[in-house]
């Protein structure tokens, strides 16, 4: 048992805003009583629930492809030296699995959601997730360009499509559904794209990206999946794409939806020269429609590697930059592109992107619906989150940074007019309580009795980036994993998955279609349950459970 005394607590899930309280921990959970054991004096320190990353790319074929393409970055980054009990690792743009765990925990994050898994290589993703220490994990499976499901929608077989969606989620041992450029990646298999909700999808006559997003959101709600449709909209990154994004939001009225990395979808103008921020317009619509959540996908200046299932966008980026390009198309399911990229403050487009990410975080007024993310590693690496927190909490610092932007950025962004500064309570909401709620992980991001004892204790520090980059203590499952920058323990994390209901006979319906499309055996395709280490199956609504947690 353990007691933490004197700390100032920010626990948005329980409405606790900066109160000094004691916390008790027993058996990895918060407890109402303390009999004996160690006491940690946190007087003068700030306590928050451990961070939850709703959208990141840390494991699987794509990030591993990215690692292969960027040895030059591995050499210049920080290196974790192995000890007798701890594996070595490299940080940087695409950190190794072990380093990923050290770096997340090192800044107080204790749960991460890998947002893009092709079913075909889900086995690989889980192997990597098993090798990410300390943090708990979940993953979302890429289904919005799955030709077997699209064929069924084309044929009007919506119920069957839903069954197969459920089948795929369980086959991948996944936690939910990710849609990337719905229909656009399917078109990319022909070298095309589908940029708008009414665009043609190559190979299909009846369905459009609009059909896919609407039907998928509905199917996911009907299946009772804890996390809503996790959507990477069409037309990512392009000037003027705000229209596509708003149109997508209108399609989804009445459904739950999570909009991933909204920054990349909030641009006005019609070419790279006159591209401007439309964050204000998007935020206004978003504020008025409470069915949605989003994560920022904020950009920070510097080097990174962009990795996305959005193959056509990556080919464009390769053509624009002339940098290295990697592309990996996955049969029947999805694609993946990789291009190293440097965001420069002197580059007008990059400067607008930088501002848009912050504007969205500042203009969306409900911190329970907008979450901190950089779409790691696309906008910046996750280990730079403390820099973003500083930008959100200090308007003066923001203004200083804006001085480095090109002069002609005036009128293209609204950031200079925004004076809002985040409070610690709001920071705890966008980094932990909010994403945990959106993911449906009720025992995360919450310091209440019985919840997982994942928490972080910070020194009070005027230097916000330093404060959030160097926690005093990080607890995972009640165990001290980080103390004053030192990695104390590297326990294995849990992995969350769901088993949505589908009719057992769907197997025999799917088999011939599967055998037509794939080149591995149907029986060998689903990931075996034994392969998931520390698996935790979460309930879908409609399942007969009272609170959705199965611990």
């Amino acid at each position, binding site marked *: 048992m353990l007691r933490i005394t004197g700390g100032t607590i920010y626990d948005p899930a329980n409405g606790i805003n900066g109160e000094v309280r004691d916390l008790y921990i027993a058996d990895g959970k918060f407890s109402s009583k303390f009999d004996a054991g160690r006491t940690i004096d946190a007087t003068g320190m700030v306590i928050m629930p451990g961070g939850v990353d709703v959208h990141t790319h840390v494991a699987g074929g794509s990030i591993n492809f990215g690692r292969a393409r960027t040895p030059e970055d591995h050499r210049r980054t920080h290196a974790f030296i*192995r000890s007798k009990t701890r594996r070595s690792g490299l940080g940087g743009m695409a950190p190794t699995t072990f380093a990923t765990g050290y770096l997340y925990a090192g800044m107080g994050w204790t749960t991460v959601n890998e947002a893009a898994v092709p079913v075909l290589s889900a086995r690989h993703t889980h192997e990597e997730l098993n090798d990410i220490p300390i943090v708990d994990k979940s993953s979302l499976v890429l289904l919005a360009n799955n030709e077997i499901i699209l064929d069924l929608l084309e044929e009007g077989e919506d119920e069957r499509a839903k069954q197969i969606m459920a089948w795929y989620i369980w086959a991948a041992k996944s936690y939910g559904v990710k849609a990337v450029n719905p229909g656009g990646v399917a078109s990319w298999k022909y070298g095309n794209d589908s940029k708008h909700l009414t665009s043609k999808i190559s190979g299909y006559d009846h369905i459009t990206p609009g059909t896919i997003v609407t039907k998928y959101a509905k199917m996911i709600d009907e299946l009772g999946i804890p996390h809503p449709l996790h959507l990477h909209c069409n037309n990512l990154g392009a000037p003027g794409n705000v229209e596509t994004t708003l149109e997508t939001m209108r399609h989804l009225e009445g459904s739950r939806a999570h909009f991933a990395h909204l920054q990349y979808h909030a641009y006005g103008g019609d070419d790279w020269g006159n591209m401007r921020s439309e964050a204000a317009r998007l935020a206004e619509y978003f504020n008025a429609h409470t069915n949605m959540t989003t994560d920022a996908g904020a950009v920070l200046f510097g080097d990174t590697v962009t990795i996305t299932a959005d193959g056509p966008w990556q080919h464009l980026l390769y053509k624009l930059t002339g940098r290295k390009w990697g592309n990996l198309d996955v049969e029947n399911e999805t694609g993946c592109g990789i291009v190293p990229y440097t965001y420069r403050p002197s580059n007008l487009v990059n400067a607008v992107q930088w501002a848009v990410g912050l504007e969205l975080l500042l203009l969306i007024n409900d911190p329970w619906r907008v979450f901190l993310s950089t779409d790691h590693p696309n906008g910046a690496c996750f280990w730079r989150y403390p820099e973003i927190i500083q930008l959100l909490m200090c308007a003066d610092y923001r203004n200083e940074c804006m001085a480095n932007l090109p002069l002609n950025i005036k009128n293209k962004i609204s950031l200079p007019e925004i004076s809002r500064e985040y409070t610690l309570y709001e920071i705890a909401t966008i980094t932990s309580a909010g994403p945990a709620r959106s993911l449906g992980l009720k025992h995360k991001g919450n310091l209440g009795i019985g919840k997982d004892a994942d928490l972080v204790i910070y020194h009070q520090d005027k230097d916000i980036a330093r404060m959030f980059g160097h926690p005093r203590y990080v607890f995972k499952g009640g165990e001290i994993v980080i103390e004053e920058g030192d990695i104390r323990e590297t326990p294995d994390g849990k992995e969350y998955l769901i088993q949505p209901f589908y009719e057992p006979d769907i197997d025999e319906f799917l088999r011939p279609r599967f055998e037509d499309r794939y080149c591995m055996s149907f*029986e060998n395709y689903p990931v075996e349950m034994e392969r998931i280490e520390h698996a935790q199956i979460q309930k879908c609504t409609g399942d007969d459970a009272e609170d959705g947690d199965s611990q």
Partner: protein
Amino acid sequence: MELKVIENATCTFCGCVCDDIELHADDVRIHQAKKACVLGKSWFLNHTAEKKYPDALIDGQPASLDEAIEVAANHLYEADMPLVYGMSNTTCEAQKECVAMADLLGALLDSHTSL
């Protein structure tokens, strides 16, 4: 004797890694590898569960597994610059153990790819 049938078995002889092989085996050997190619067939049929070799050899002399593990660990530990090499004809699970061992040892680590 009734042969055991393994459906959708995976052949790791070449990089095709075909996973639709039907194996018919008794306790000692595989008698049939249906759907396998000529290379796959000989791969499956040439391995048996017989005890053809000693558990281990130390300096060419038969030895027990425990002794061999002790001697191997000793050589690797004492070396200034050990090398861990190969990892082609083995499972991912064994490969992960090799990387973990190389990490602990401070070794050179390399596969066939470098050839």
